């Protein structure tokens, strides 16, 4: 229950940070998608679930997607679908992704964020929302993906360091 509460509080803080820091971290009218990064972290920063069991990453990503829709003012449900789809893929690629070192994880973040943003763009397009010109929108997606990937490096380093330190602590106690 504590983990669940921490997840909700983290999602809340990330949503606020994305709104508050959007003006400060603007690069060519594009800011990093902290919610997408948070969804990726929530999917990957946990031990792999046993095969056949429910993968909570999909559910948590769907919740983050819902917050993304509410936060961005886009069509509700589009973010849920986009984040869930990418989380499902991540669940399948999870064991391989966890073996990557932080730098490669950082590099792998870019296509995942780009996929989420592209799906959101596509969903809004289908839902009839007004979107900018496709070339401009794709360019924005690329910038957002690169930007989010760049700032994710220290986070992936911390995510990789925490389990390792836990293992070292267990070994020392043993």
């Amino acid at each position, binding site marked *: 229950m504590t983990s669940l509460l921490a997840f909700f509080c983290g999602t809340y803080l990330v949503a606020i940070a994305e709104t508050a820091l959007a003006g400060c971290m603007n690069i060519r009218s594009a800011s990093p998608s902290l919610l997408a990064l948070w969804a990726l972290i929530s999917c990957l920063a946990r031990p792999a679930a046993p095969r056949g*069991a429910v993968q909570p990453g999909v559910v948590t990503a769907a919740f983050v997607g819902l917050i993304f829709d509410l936060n961005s003012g886009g069509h509700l449900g*589009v973010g849920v679908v986009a984040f869930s789809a990418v989380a499902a893929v991540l669940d399948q690629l999870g064991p391989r992704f966890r073996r990557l070192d932080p730098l490669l994880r950082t590099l792998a973040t870019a296509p995942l964020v780009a996929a989420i943003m592209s799906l959101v763009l596509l969903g809004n397009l289908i839902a009839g929302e007004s979107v900018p010109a496709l070339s401009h929108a794709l360019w924005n997606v690329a910038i957002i993906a690169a930007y989010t990937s760049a700032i994710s490096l220290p986070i992936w380093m911390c995510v990789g360091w925490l389990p390792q330190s836990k293992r070292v602590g267990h070994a020392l106690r043993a």
Partner: protein
Amino acid sequence: MFNDLRRSIIRLPFGASVAATLAAGVLLAALPRRTVEPLRAAYARCVEPGRMAASRARETVQSTLQKWREHAASAEELAVLAKQVEQLTARNRELEAAVSRSTPVADATKSTNELPPLVSVDLLPAPVLGRHACSVLATDEIIRGGRDRALARDAIVLAGTTTTIDGGADAEVAAGDVALAGRRVFGRVVEVGPHTSTVRRADQPGYRDVVQIVSADGASSGQAVRGVLEGTGEPLARVRRVSAQSPVVVGDCVTTVDQQGLSPRPLVYGRVARVERATGAPQWDIWVDLAADSEPPERLLVLRARMNPARVAAATPDDNANYDHSAVADPEERQ
């Protein structure tokens, strides 16, 4: 971290859970906007405090950064100013050295061209004393002041009165304008005691002074006529030795001669009250109505001339410099 969450969710196969979330998303997307507006409003209300706190935190951080930048800028400015102070100090030293090198030349120039005047003239306020004695000595007035205040015989005595005129800034009267109502000549110091002096009025017998008569319309001194003013014991003084060829009319001003060097401007005796000439006489008989009252005022101003101590002090180094020390050298050596 997510073990609790995993345990709290109904166990479903992976495909089923993905399908459920995707279906939920599609269902939400299919809802009309009006239906989800309450959800958006509730979310906005929940997020608003966090946004406000974040904006305050951002402002705090920005102000702190701004202070740091200003502090850094102040440090840079301080460094620049310190450098300027060093440069100006060095420049000041150079200028002081240049001044010290040029001082002897400047002193020499000053000694020849900019010497203070040898005689300084000032006005000594002197209250009139001895009313009773004045009544006894009808011709003279006794004032406080004698040799102890550097008074000398024949010093000019002025009536030190003040006059208030009907005009000020509204009439564009400015400080420094010459007021011709004051500084009238009262008489001269005839005897100087240790502490008192005796002043003879200009209308009393025995009083004589060289005066000039200038036209009342303010003509230049080049047209002034000179004569000798004598006291007659009468209310009107008399001016003699004025050539009958000179243009003198009633109302002309009688003043001291401005070449005396004691005053930059002539001092007023009075105005010509009557002009007479006997038949065939070569000179005018001019009667002057003195500007100063016959009754002495409570205070007189004595125009006194003294040796200027500044001139003496300025001349002493040059005298020492020009002094021929060889003149007092050893006579044997000189030989």
